[in-house]
């Protein structure tokens, strides 16, 4: 709790919101409780907002206490971030077991969240709670508020057009569950976000609503301070690297959007193809009912087409459930990242404005005023956080898309393999020769001619009868060299 001196790995349990000043509440007039407000995430030490006595591993003081942000502390930040890529996983979160709840006022789905952790922040090694989409939404908002310098992963779409999509269908719920699971896992993997207060509560609290209500009181104050900071400043120019990121995200989102549309179009075409296939197969069955010898092969063809249809249906289902949602998720991600970039711009703008104001005042101060320093700090922290997150995001993106595109290729390959298998399995049936299986013939009982050959069976000994390519290999006429007596005519 606030005020308690940290010992190595200080602080356990959730902090009261009252003790947590808003990180951006940096202007002098809004000095919140708890002294210095700059958040200094620290992997090895539990983070505690506004904890003055936070000690960094290199012995330095938290950034922003006195002098301009020391480069060493920034370096620490980056170092710490690198460390998380090591194999030291100490937090595992899973989303599963969706259940429908029917109440008088509404019907909704909850998901079970299972947490396993050895971290000190967690009182118990294991937790299991139930949450609904609303709760996830709340969590995300809280994260955005409390960690504005970081990229918060996206949630699956909130609003679903009723009547078009069934909110309680198995496919929809499963798709959503996967997305929510992804969301929590991304937070879990993040070196800063995973230590977030709200995240912890979300994972552990029995009654989340009570906790939510606590926060409401503070909301207005917090909201205002945010507005205060992020309004009104115009950035002259984005630094090159952030401009590059912005451009990249623009193009990226655009291309993903196109891919999403193409994928949807493909699925639509495949479904229409499926409809025709489902009519095509049965016609062979109808035909088979008219025939004698051909009945079995025709029936076989019909069944084969049926199998191909089923395989295609599986393919389109997979694409809809696994491919499209990931594309959409990344589009949403890009959008939220662009807004973080804008916030960063705001912070920089504020700093530059204040700097200019000071310069214009032409006072003899040897020192830069404290509030300008704080602005600079804020800006540099923001930049650092953002750059680190971008790197992480790029790496995750590469992995996610690799998996996605390979999955798409694999599913398609499986589809073709299933079709191949279906067709190959009926080849023996088609080649089968019941005793009297003949190619179409002309003639009477004395002589018979295969329709495809231009010579009658019984060519001159030594000469090659000419057989057309179209004569089936099972044609008895052509395989018999001597005259017709051996050939049976039904």
């Amino acid at each position: 709790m606030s005020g308690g001196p940290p010992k190595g790995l200080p602080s356990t349990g959730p902090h009261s919101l009252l003790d947590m000043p808003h990180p951006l509440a940096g202007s002098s007039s809004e000095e919140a409780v708890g002294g210095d407000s700059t958040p200094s995430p620290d992997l090895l030490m539990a983070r505690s907002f506004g904890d003055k006595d936070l000690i960094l591993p290199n012995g330095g003081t938290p950034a922003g206490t006195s002098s301009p942000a020391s480069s060493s502390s920034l370096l620490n930040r980056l170092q710490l971030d690198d460390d998380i890529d090591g194999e030291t996983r100490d937090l595992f979160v899973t989303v599963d077991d969706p259940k429908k709840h029917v109440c008088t006022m509404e019907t909704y789905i909850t998901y079970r969240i299972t947490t396993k952790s050895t971290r000190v922040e967690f009182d118990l090694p294991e937790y299991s709670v139930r949450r609904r989409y609303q709760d996830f939404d709340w969590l995300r908002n809280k994260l955005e508020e409390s960690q504005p310098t970081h990229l918060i992963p996206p949630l699956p779409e909130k609003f679903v057009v009723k009547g078009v999509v069934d909110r309680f269908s198995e496919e929809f719920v499963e798709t959503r569950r996967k997305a929510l699971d992804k969301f929590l896992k991304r937070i879990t993997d993040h070196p800063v976000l995973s230590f977030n207060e709200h995240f912890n509560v979300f994972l552990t609290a029995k009654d989340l609503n009570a906790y939510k209500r606590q926060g409401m009181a503070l909301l207005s104050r917090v909201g205002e301070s945010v507005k205060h900071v992020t309004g009104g400043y115009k950035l002259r120019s984005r630094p090159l690297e952030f401009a590059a990121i912005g451009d990249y995200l623009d193009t990226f989102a655009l291309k993903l959007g196109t891919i999403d549309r193409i994928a949807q179009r493909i699925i639509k075409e495949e479904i229409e193809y499926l409809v025709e296939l489902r009519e095509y197969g049965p016609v062979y069955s109808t035909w088979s009912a008219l025939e004698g010898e051909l009945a079995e092969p025709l029936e076989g063809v019909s069944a084969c087409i049926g199998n191909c249809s089923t395989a295609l249906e599986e393919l389109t289902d997979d694409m809809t459930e696994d491919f499209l949602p990931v594309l959409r998720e990344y589009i949403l991600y890009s959008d939220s990242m662009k807004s973080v970039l804008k916030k960063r711009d705001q912070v920089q703008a504020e700093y530059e404005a204040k700097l200019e104001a000071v310069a214009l005042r032409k006072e003899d101060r040897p020192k830069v005023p404290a509030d300008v320093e704080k602005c600079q700090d804020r800006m540099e922290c923001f930049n650092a956080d953002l750059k680190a997150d971008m790197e992480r995001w790029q790496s995750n993106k590469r992995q996610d898309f690799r998996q996605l595109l390979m999955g798409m290729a694999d599913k398609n390959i499986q589809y073709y393999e299933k079709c191949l298998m279906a067709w190959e399995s009926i080849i023996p049936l088609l080649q089968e020769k019941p005793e009297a299986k003949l190619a179409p013939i002309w003639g009477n009982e004395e002589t018979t001619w295969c329709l495809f050959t231009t010579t009658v069976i019984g060519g001159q000994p030594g000469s090659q009868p000419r057989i057309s390519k179209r004569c089936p290999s099972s044609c008895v006429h052509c395989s018999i060299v001597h005259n017709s007596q051996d050939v049976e005519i039904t």
Partner: protein
Amino acid sequence: MEQAPPDLERQWQPAPLEPLGHTDAGLQAAVGEEAEGSRDEVPGDGTMTENNFGLKKIEISVSEAEKRTGRNAMNMQETYTAYLIETRSVEHTDGQSVLTDSLWRRYSEFELLRNYLLVYYPHIVVPPLPEKRAEFVWHKLSADNMDPDFVERRRIGLENFLLRVASHPILCRDKIFYLFLTQEGNWKETVNETGFQLKADSRLKALNATFRVKNPDKRFTELKHYSDELQSVISHLLRVRARVADRLYGVYKVHGNYGRVFSEWSAIEKEMGDGLQSAGHHMDVYASSIDDILEDEEHYADQLKEYLFYAEALRAVCRKHELMQYDLEMAAQDLASKKQQCEELATGTVRTFSLKGMTTKLFGQETPEQREARIKVLEEQINEGEQQLKSKNLEGREFKFGPMLRNALARCNPVK
């Protein structure tokens, strides 16, 4: 090459509608004779030549197609495709083939040949021609008769047609067919001179017979039903197949859109760039692979169409039989009534109501001379009628027991 030995001359007559002049024997024997006749010409080791122009084996091929322009009947310029028919005779001894005839024919001439064969050999299921116009098309496939793929498939179909006619023991001996392969100029006139168009049965007559025939042969009825159902199911199949091809084409082509966007995306990526570029390329390859796939499938469709037309030809034979049966029944009926009339006149009893009876009552009986005269006329008519009936019966038998038809009927026994 016209080295017809004398005894072949007789065989060059177009097979007439009347029986082959052996009224006492069924056609079975006649066919037997024919077959034996041909066997006699052949070396005694049992070799058979069905392409029996002379003693040599004949190879027929439709080897080329060419676009031509000319003037049509109304003196307007038109473009059409001509096909090169080459005939080779194969020497027995060394198996080498020598080009004996080659000429150009267009589709309409093939049609003329087939129509002629249909009229002169009504009891034979005449092999079908490839379709006149591209039907069962899906959107990409050109319905244009000048399209090279269409022309190529038509060439194959025409070749199959000629090979099948040449393989048929009866059709292959037809002189008009022989001239089709050997005489380029003037052939059309020769065909038309046979007057076959006049001999063709009218559709209306055939329809009438279908409804009015009293004792249709059960086997023919079954055959008719089978061919109807076959036609219907194959048409359905072809229609759905065309739609399936259309949709499949769409699926592949939309994948092509991935090509461009992956390429554009790869431009902004560092590590992922190469992979995405490659993926885009493969999407393009995938999208273009559908053209060959569907072109191959067209050959399958062509074979289905072949049997669709075969079913039609089969149906035509059944129709002809119904017509003949109907004629037979009419003739028999007519004969029966004449006989009765005759009897009545002879015995003087009037059993049925007739105009003669009425007039007799009204105007008095006729003189014995008059009666004699009328009896005589009737007796003549009865004789004629009996002859006719006999010949019709024979026709019917010839029809039924014609060589290939017997097999077709036998195969039509319900196996279900």
